[in-house]
């Protein structure tokens, strides 16, 4: 399962944290990371002869390289270049994907016509577009934006469309009964009703984009983490390569966490079932649950 928002954890206390919560949130992941490093170190120790070029892949060598690279600012430049491409690529994907998803979910004719074509295109690995992208856009940032966008557009479009399809049609009827125009319906009912789905789509898209980014940067650009990996290989700087891989993993992890945090709506969303709390003056509220159940 991909990322349930932490807010849904029932065991948290009023502040959202508990002792076990902190342990679960920080302790276990750190333990896992430590285990990985130990295994990594053991593997090098056991299977790599000292003095072999492979010993440059050891965790301690990688860590030292990482400190140096951060220290002299080399990595920062590449990280910034990569992050910028991710942002632009995701932005393009969102600008195209959200309206596309709205149309897919809301217009039956559109989804019947375009839906199958879209699934076809979606199944083509984004990197298959590389030669075309370079022919169309030349070398530089643009083909990278294109490759990220064409990969990231699907999670956004599909989540948006699923959200629209799951909107309670009665909400739309309510809006019409209050004489909302189409634009007003979209603004006040459809959009807030699917916002959680769109945000989920963006989170998934971010992960996809990050995975596409590195290979996409191995073509025709002279900055970014993907470029830096190839560059390290060419310089036989294998410890730098290790450092780059660690940074890619760590940044991806952090981005995903940050997206979780930023893109999980804190306000009540359309899907959350009603809490069974009953307050009320005078009136006895034994209401049937059905009375305030929002159909999915």
């Amino acid at each position: 399962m991909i990322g349930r928002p932490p807010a849904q954890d029932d065991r948290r206390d009023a502040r959202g944290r508990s002792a076990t919560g902190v342990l679960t949130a920080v302790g276990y992941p750190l333990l896992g990371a430590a285990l990985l490093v130990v295994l990594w170190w053991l593997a090098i120790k056991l299977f790599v002869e000292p003095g072999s070029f492979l010993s440059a892949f050891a965790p301690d060598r990688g860590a030292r390289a990482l400190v140096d690279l951060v220290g002299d600012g080399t990595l920062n430049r590449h990280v910034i270049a990569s992050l910028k491409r991710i942002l632009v690529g995701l932005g393009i994907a969102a600008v195209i994907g959200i309206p596309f998803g709205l149309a897919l979910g809301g217009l039956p004719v559109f989804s019947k016509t375009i839906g199958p074509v879209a699934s076809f295109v979606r199944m083509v690995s984004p990197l298959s577009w590389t030669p075309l992208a370079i022919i169309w856009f030349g070398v530089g940032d643009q083909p990278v934006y294109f490759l990220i966008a064409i990969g990231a557009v699907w999670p956004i479009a599909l989540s948006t469309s699923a959200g629209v399809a799951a909107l309670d049609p009665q909400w739309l009827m309510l809006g019409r009964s209050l004489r909302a125009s189409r634009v007003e319906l979209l603004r006040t009912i459809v959009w807030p009703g699917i916002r959680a789905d769109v945000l989920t789509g963006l989170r998934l898209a971010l992960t996809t984009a990050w995975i596409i980014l590195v290979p996409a940067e191995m073509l025709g650009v002279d900055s970014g983490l993907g470029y830096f990996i190839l560059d390290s290989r060419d310089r036989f700087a294998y410890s730098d390569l290790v450092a780059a891989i660690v940074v890619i993993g760590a940044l991806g992890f952090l981005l995903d966490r940050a997206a979780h945090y930023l893109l999980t709506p804190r306000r009540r969303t359309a899907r959350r079932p009603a809490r069974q709390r009953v307050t009320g003056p005078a009136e006895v509220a034994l209401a049937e649950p059905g009375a305030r159940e929002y159909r999915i």
Partner: protein
Amino acid sequence: MAASPLRVSGGTRRFGARGQQFTVFEGLDLEVEAGEVFVLLGPSGCGKSTLLRVIAGLDELDEGTVAIAAEEHGRDVGIVFQQPLLLPWLSVRENVTLGLNYDANRSADEPGLVDRTLAEFGLTELADAYPDELSGGQAQRVSLARTVVTRPRVILLDEPFGALDPLTRRNLQQWLLGIQQSLGLTVVMVTHDVEEALLLGNRVALMSPSPGRICRTWELSSESREARPMADLREEVLQTYAEVARLAPGNTSGFAAGL
């Protein structure tokens, strides 16, 4: 007397493709007076909700007309559904204000209107609460307030208390009666509950199924209330209701082509 705010003449609504059409109601006439509570009783499936949707402009007649006298401010008809249909991401106040944000209802808005309405509906304390913090009865009050605040000339209520427990239902009935009288609302209300119909209605109409028609109407002016024992009247309504319900579809499929 002003022109009646709502009149349906010869209303006919069919569903389904040509050839095997299903007539929900046919040649239906209905006239509602300003300030009255018109209650529509009828067995399930006879077309009450369809009729309300047609009056609310959410569906259209195949034949006949719906005439609604225009109000100077605010809109013509408002409808309250059986489910409160509150938007869960909006607070009580925001839910109540929803319709006023739409261009079509801007003219109904005025300073203090929302606060006043919240107070009238006993929602002032709950203004900042969210729908998932409300009881069913409170939610239905918010839903009513959201419609009333746009100042429709006629308010349509489709089994508004159908999903509530008996006590909440009772309270809300009393309260609705109070609100209706103090605001001078014109109400068309659908219910299955004969008690509720007799308690709230100035007129109670019984709708027969397949095809739907108003087959009987009872006047419940205060004089007639006194002239006749309530139990007596209730018995009569129930009996007629039972006779009509025997005609209801349900076991038969209710195709009425050519009838």
